[in-house]
């Protein structure tokens, strides 16, 4: 026989206002196995808690029902309280009499009746609860950061500065991401590369950071504290141990290809460093274009290399290591506007460019050494049209969300253009101007004062006429159609998740939303955590944001990782799935539905009817299981049970609600 104690709270007048607490307590006293019922004005206060402890001792209570606020609020408080008594912390049920009763009902009679039902259900369920015990999971003191942009670099630095080793994986030949490609950063107009490249070299030189450039995460398994991660280091064809980065090979390489770093507006060699300040400051060979690797002829770089570091036989290398925590910082890509906007020429006009092209054009290390020239004929454009929200906020064509940074970098482009071409004309077509941020609106007003002509409306068509481009659009403020002749058009295109980021997130058991952005655990209260314990996120992989927000979020993610890695071990959540192997038919429905990849099918030997038999049964990984219960619903044979929410316990709740 169980001995149940029921504690009903007034919560001041929060509960008592709409629920007759004493009536609820009276009914509770009549319920089977209830040996003690108490009401309290503020149960969560110190005297309230002391009274519970005393009652447990006095009445030899072995399980507890709390008729209080939501378990989201105080379930942990009660567990902690019980852990100080002889009662197991999981011999507890919380009947939510506040958020689900008093706060949502006005009629006291109705509220009381519902509160009584909830108490009955909780009593019925707690009667079937069993004691659960958490286990200690050891934590590997090493973090993995996926993505070497400003978000990943900041997170890696913060974690490493706190004394924890970090591996930073970047799929491009150099870390840095998009930030070094930018010219200036709004609203202070400090040079982007000048503030980003020191961080890059700090990352490269940090004794606790292992930079894995030109590498990708191949697979992730395991669970919080113990992620087994396989990293594929793509063949660089260079021995990085002996290469000094002298650049001789790059000078002599005869093959020229489009330079991705300048978005095809300049050329690079087949053996190349992405840009001058690249980290690691060593080249890789582009196997697709290298003559030696494609045709078997050439070998110039090998001949000129003073340290004999070229290795044409290099191959991809796979390494597997264990990490305690993972930070996703996979970043963004610009939307492929060419496919979506045929009316803007669909990418066939060389002078209709994206904002990132403009960043390279205006940048001193860019294709035109910082002089504003248009790509087609290198002439200085005397009039420029800037179109905002290309792909963003347009569910019919691109995506429905706002890309957040475009209003500001659009204003920055207008300002930079007018600064460098004083006799130029700049027109900005916009839907709305959104400039929330420190110093942002001031910057926008300054750009308007510089002479940028802001036109509220969208551009319907861009076509070439002779030497210039005609932009047809609407000025919704004057209600007129406008036609602007431009020498160059800059499309401020929206952000989309970087290619492969969904796959990487899925590997870590993390979901993405419909647009492909990685989903945080809670949009307000857990913004850098994911639903997978031990996996964190930062930067634009979660959604469009600017550099200040990205850096702030990276620091937040790092602090969470440091908090985790500082512990030698963590306590597991014992409310996880449990397989009744005698019932399990091994059909794997639970494996397919598990969002965390926590269930595997294994072959196991059983003794059945005095005979040894081998059967396939499901097996739950205690570290990975988050106790969501999806498998219990999917299991056709009823072999899966969620500890703490057993099928039997829930049926008893239903019975309690329906029978009495």
């Amino acid at each position: 026989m169980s001995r149940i104690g029921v504690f009903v709270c007034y919560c001041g007048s929060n509960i008592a206002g709409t629920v007759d607490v004493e009536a609820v307590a009276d009914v509770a006293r009549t319920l089977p196995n209830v040996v003690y019922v108490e009401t309290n004005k503020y149960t969560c206060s110190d005297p309230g808690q002391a009274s519970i402890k005393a009652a447990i001792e006095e009445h030899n209570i072995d399980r507890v029902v709390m008729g209080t606020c939501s378990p989201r609020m105080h379930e942990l408080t009660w567990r902690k309280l019980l852990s100080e008594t002889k009662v197991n912390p999981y011999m507890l049920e919380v009947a939510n009499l506040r958020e689900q009763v008093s706060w949502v009902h006005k009629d006291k009679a109705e509220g009381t009746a519902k509160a009584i039902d909830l108490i009955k259900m909780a009593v019925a369920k707690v009667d079937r609860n069993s004691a659960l015990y958490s286990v200690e999971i050891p934590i590997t003191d090493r973090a993995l950061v996926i993505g070497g942009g400003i978000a990943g670099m900041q997170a890696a630095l913060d974690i490493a500065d706190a004394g924890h080793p970090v591996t930073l994986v970047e799929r491009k030949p150099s870390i840095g991401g998009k930030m070094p490609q930018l010219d200036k950063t709004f609203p202070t107009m400090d040079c982007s590369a000048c503030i980003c490249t020191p961080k890059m070299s700090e990352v490269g030189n940090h004794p606790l950071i292992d930079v894995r450039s030109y590498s990708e995460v191949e697979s992730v398994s395991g669970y919080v504290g113990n992620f087994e991660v396989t990293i594929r280091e793509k063949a660089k064809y260079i021995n990085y141990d002996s290469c000094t980065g002298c650049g001789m090979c790059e000078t002599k390489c005869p093959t020229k290809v489009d330079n991705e770093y300048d978005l095809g507006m300049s050329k690079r060699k087949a053996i190349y460093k992405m840009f001058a300040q690249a980290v690691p400051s060593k080249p890789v060979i582009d196997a697709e274009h290298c003559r030696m690797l494609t045709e078997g002829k050439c070998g110039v770089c090998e001949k000129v290399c003073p340290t004999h570091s070229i290795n044409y036989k290099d191959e991809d290398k796979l390494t597997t290591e264990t990490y305690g925590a993972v930070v996703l910082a996979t970043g963004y890509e610009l939307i492929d506007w060419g496919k979506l906007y045929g009316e803007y020429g669909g990418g066939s006009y060389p002078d209709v460019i994206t904002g990132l092209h403009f960043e390279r054009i205006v940048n001193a290390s860019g294709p035109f050494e910082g002089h504003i020239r248009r790509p087609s004929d290198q002439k200085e454009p005397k009039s420029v049209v800037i179109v905002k929200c290309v792909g963003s906020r347009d569910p019919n064509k691109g995506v429905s969300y706002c890309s957040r940074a475009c209003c500001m970098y659009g204003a920055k482009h207008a300002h930079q253009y007018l600064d460098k071409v004083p006799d130029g004309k700049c027109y900005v077509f916009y839907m709305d101007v959104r400039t929330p941020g420190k110093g942002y609106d001031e910057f926008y007003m300054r750009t308007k004062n510089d002479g940028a002509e802001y036109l509220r409306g969208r551009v319907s068509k861009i076509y070439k006429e002779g030497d210039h481009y005609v932009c047809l659009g609407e000025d919704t403020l004057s209600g007129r159609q406008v036609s602007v002749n431009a020498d160059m058009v800059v499309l401020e295109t929206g952000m989309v998740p970087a290619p492969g980021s969904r796959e990487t997130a899925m590997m870590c058991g993390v979901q993405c939303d419909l647009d492909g952005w990685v989903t945080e655990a809670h949009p307000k209260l857990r913004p850098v955590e994911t639903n997978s314990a031990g996996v964190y996120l930062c930067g634009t992989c979660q959604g469009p944001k600017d550099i200040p927000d990205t850096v702030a979020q990276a620091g937040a993610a790092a602090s969470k990782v440091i908090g985790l890695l500082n512990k030698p071990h963590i306590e597991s959540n014992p409310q996880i799935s449990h397989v009744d192997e005698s019932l399990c038919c091994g059909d794997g429905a639970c494996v397919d539905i598990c969002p965390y990849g926590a269930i595997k099918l294994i072959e196991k030997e059983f003794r059945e009817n005095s005979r040894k038999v081998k059967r396939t049964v499901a097996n739950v990984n205690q570290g990975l299981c988050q106790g969501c219960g999806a498998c219990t619903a999917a299991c056709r044979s009823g072999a899966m049970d969620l500890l703490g929410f057993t099928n039997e316990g829930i049926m008893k709740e239903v019975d309690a609600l329906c029978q009495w």
Partner: protein
Amino acid sequence: MTKYAYFPGCSAHSTGISQTISVDYIAPRLDIELTEIPDWSCCGTSAVKLTNMDMALALPARSLAISERELPGQDVFAPCAGCFQSLKTSAEFSKESDENLAKIKRMIDMPYEASVDVVNVLDVLNTDEAKEALKANMKYRLQGIKVACYYGCALVRPEKICDPDSVENPQVMENLVKIIGGDPIDWPFKVECCGASNHITIPEAGKKLSKNIIENAVDNGADIIVTACPLCWMNLDMREDEINKKFGTNFDIPVYYITELLGAALGGNATEIGLDRHFRPAEGLLTKLVDKDAPLPETEEEKKARLRKEAAAKKAAEKKAAKAAEVAEGADADADGAADAAPATADKKDEVKA
């Protein structure tokens, strides 16, 4: 032989008469059999849509239901772009859900399964069979004629109904023009509005739109404009003089239906393919045709290659001549040979320049 249920529409015997005549001419030559839907009714056009959307869906559905019953299994071919759009909008509506179909059936009070597909001129011509037949049966080529293929709105928009290869830069007409040897130009106004009915209600607005299209085609070097919509054709062909008068321009560019162009390539005379029914003289096209098997003109690359070859030959000849003159000053034969070669190449160069 591809069979279609034919929905002529009201323009077939009025503004679109040239299209009707040319469709009748090319259909048998492209292995296409057209059977007119018996007792077809008005497609509803834009007027009904503005008055009563239910009627705009039911009117075409009636003709589609008749076609389904009388000409089972055949796609409905509407040569008028407006008819195509009305019919297809109705057909798609009925296909969308059982409720929609039930509603339409209630309105038309006829058995109807919404099994028919609706196609336009370009769909009919863009099949492999039709293209093969065109290649096999064509007699003439439109050598060197620069063609602005003009689609207008109803053949490409809305995208969900019309399902074109590209909304902004379709290529179906261009590909047909290439088959018959024409030179389609790349121009940005191919899907702009022709002004449609605004020419009647707000002529100022309508004329400006038509003018923009003609102007852009001419600016991009077009010799002729080709369309597949009777309304577009009327607004461009019939109103060219009005536009010239209003804007003080001097446009003189003929406008054809794509079916007329194919008809001309297939050997039709002016009356057979409807060229004599244009407002702007259009028969000139026939004088520019060349025989299908006439030698192809030189392409740019071929021209370059030929010039390179000639230059090399000339250089070699000069070298040879110089050498010969050096070695044996009195050798007449060699000197004659060099003298012959030099004027010959000079002639060729003049030809190229011309």
